[in-house]
């Protein structure tokens, strides 16, 4: 009854669009990444010389920012998982009739602009904010310690800003668990911890995988948190790519770095999905 051509007709407009504005730009970026400056040319003029050493140069020159991007993103993802898991669990199993309203409240803070939230953290953690003076009074940090312009601030900003990407998939996954499986585990003399380790956690793995990926990918490519909450010593790969584009007009290096970042993320993600043993992504 259904015509064979129907799905293809439905796909054509969208895929044509993605081809022109996603595939083509990526291919073009690959091309740019092996260009070299035009002899006697103006700033920003490049010619194609297939110089693959661009990648090596770009990587060596920026290996610090490169490793920082991944370390920050991994730490932020892990902290977000630690914060979100109990929250998602509580929402799914313990919130009762308040479930929907609490779910709205979890997402609500992210209705304000991403940039405004980050600037707010900068001022809260800054010298004029209330956190630093009170921590100094109770002696947790010394008089000379600051919280902004540190890697701590950058990681905490990333954790906060990408939290809903962790909480929502986790909630969706935990909420699908039949509470009777937990009861059954208890009936078979498993204690709370064993039930969690053997039943809840494995059943929520799709959510853990989706959440960690959705948090890690934007975090690794982010430069806004590092820019607003960090210092020159906390610059990430995103900051370098941005300044190569706009300030130095060094397109080949920016392109090479973009590709390295994307390749590294794809490799990490593939290994991770294999290890976590789920193909179901979204």
């Amino acid at each position, binding site marked *: 009854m259904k015509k064979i051509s129907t799905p*293809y007709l439905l796909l054509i407009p969208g895929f044509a669009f993605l081809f022109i504005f996603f595939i083509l730009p990526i291919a073009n970026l690959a091309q*740019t990444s092996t260009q070299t400056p035009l002899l006697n040319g103006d700033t920003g003029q490049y010619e194609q010389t297939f110089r693959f050493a661009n990648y090596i140069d770009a990587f060596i020159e920026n290996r610090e920012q490169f490793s920082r991007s991944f370390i920050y993103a991994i730490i932020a993802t892990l902290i977000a998982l630690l914060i979100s898991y109990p929250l998602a669990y509580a929402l799914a199993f313990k919130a009762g009739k308040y479930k929907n309203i609490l779910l709205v409240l979890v997402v*609500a803070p992210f209705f304000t*602009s*991403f940039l405004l939230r980050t600037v*707010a953290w*900068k001022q809260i953690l800054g010298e004029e904010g209330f956190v630093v003076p009170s921590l100094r009074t109770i002696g947790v940090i010394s008089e000379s310690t600051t919280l902004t312009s540190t890697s701590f601030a950058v990681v905490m900003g990333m954790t906060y800003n990408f*939290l809903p990407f962790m909480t929502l998939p986790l909630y969706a996954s935990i909420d699908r668990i039949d509470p009777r499986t937990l009861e059954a585990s208890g009936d078979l003399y498993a204690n709370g911890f064993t039930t969690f380790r053997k039943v809840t956690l494995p059943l929520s793995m799709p959510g853990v995988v989706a959440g960690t990926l959705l948090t890690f990918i934007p975090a690794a490519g982010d430069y806004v948190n590092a820019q607003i909450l960090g210092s020159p010593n906390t610059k990430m790969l995103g900051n370098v790519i941005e300044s190569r584009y706009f300030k130095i007009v060094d397109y080949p290096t920016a392109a090479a770095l973009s590709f390295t970042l994307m390749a590294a993320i794809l490799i990490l993600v593939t290994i991770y999905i294999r290890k976590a043993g789920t193909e179901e992504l979204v």
Partner: protein
Amino acid sequence: MTVKQKDASIPTLPLGAQISRWIGRNLIRIYMVFAFTYLFIPVAYTFAFSFNDSGKSNLIWKGFTFDNWMNPCGAPEVCSALGNSIKIGLLATIFSTILGTMIAFAIGRYAFKGRSASNLLIFLPMATPEIVLGASLLSLFLVFQISPGFWPTVLAHVVFCVSFVVVTVKARIASLDPRLEQAAMDLYANEFQTFRRVTLPLVAPGIAAAALLAFSLSFDDFIITNFNSGTVTTFPKFVYVSAARGIPAQANVIGSAMFFLALALVIVGQVVSRKRKVS
């Protein structure tokens, strides 16, 4: 009886044990209080400082005023930036919802050659870091000598919104009961009538959710916009640029208003869907 006896035995415990028992029993509630406090700190801060009688730089509390709320366009560029964000957001939402919904129907409803490749093509833009998307599009525009600006930004937003629309609508299609459509066909509805009268109304909430998601993604986007917007300023870009010298309190007003507007929208949506379920 036994329960009462248990309760009666509590006061005889030492205070420390009582406290730790109470904490143990309310652990989840205590955790929720901490978690929600953490989540709402920046929102509360933004809201509080929207009432700051701050002049140009909104860094230190100087006194309470309603002026910023009475005059949200008082700071230069705030409202034109907001207007641009809304325009770009609406256009990107319309285009991405149409394209994404068509793709979602194709993938969700039909078995065809290249279906898994299509899924991959949808997944890739979501797995690509925003900075790579933004930088690659800018390179393309530069090659074709299109200067960054309003329309390049709209196109760039459609690229990353489409995938999210597809995923959202596809999930809704997957949750439909196929028997409803079979029933419509049994009642002599043709394919088009079945689609219009049965399938589409059932998928509509998914499409609406996808459109809302697309709008909020576009509205809040900074990285891709920063690469492709040239001299056009959007609201996030405005905040980013003025962050160095302190953003005006009017930006806090707009941020807070957005928060309450979105909250109201979501609550109304929930109430409506619950009423529908009841009736």
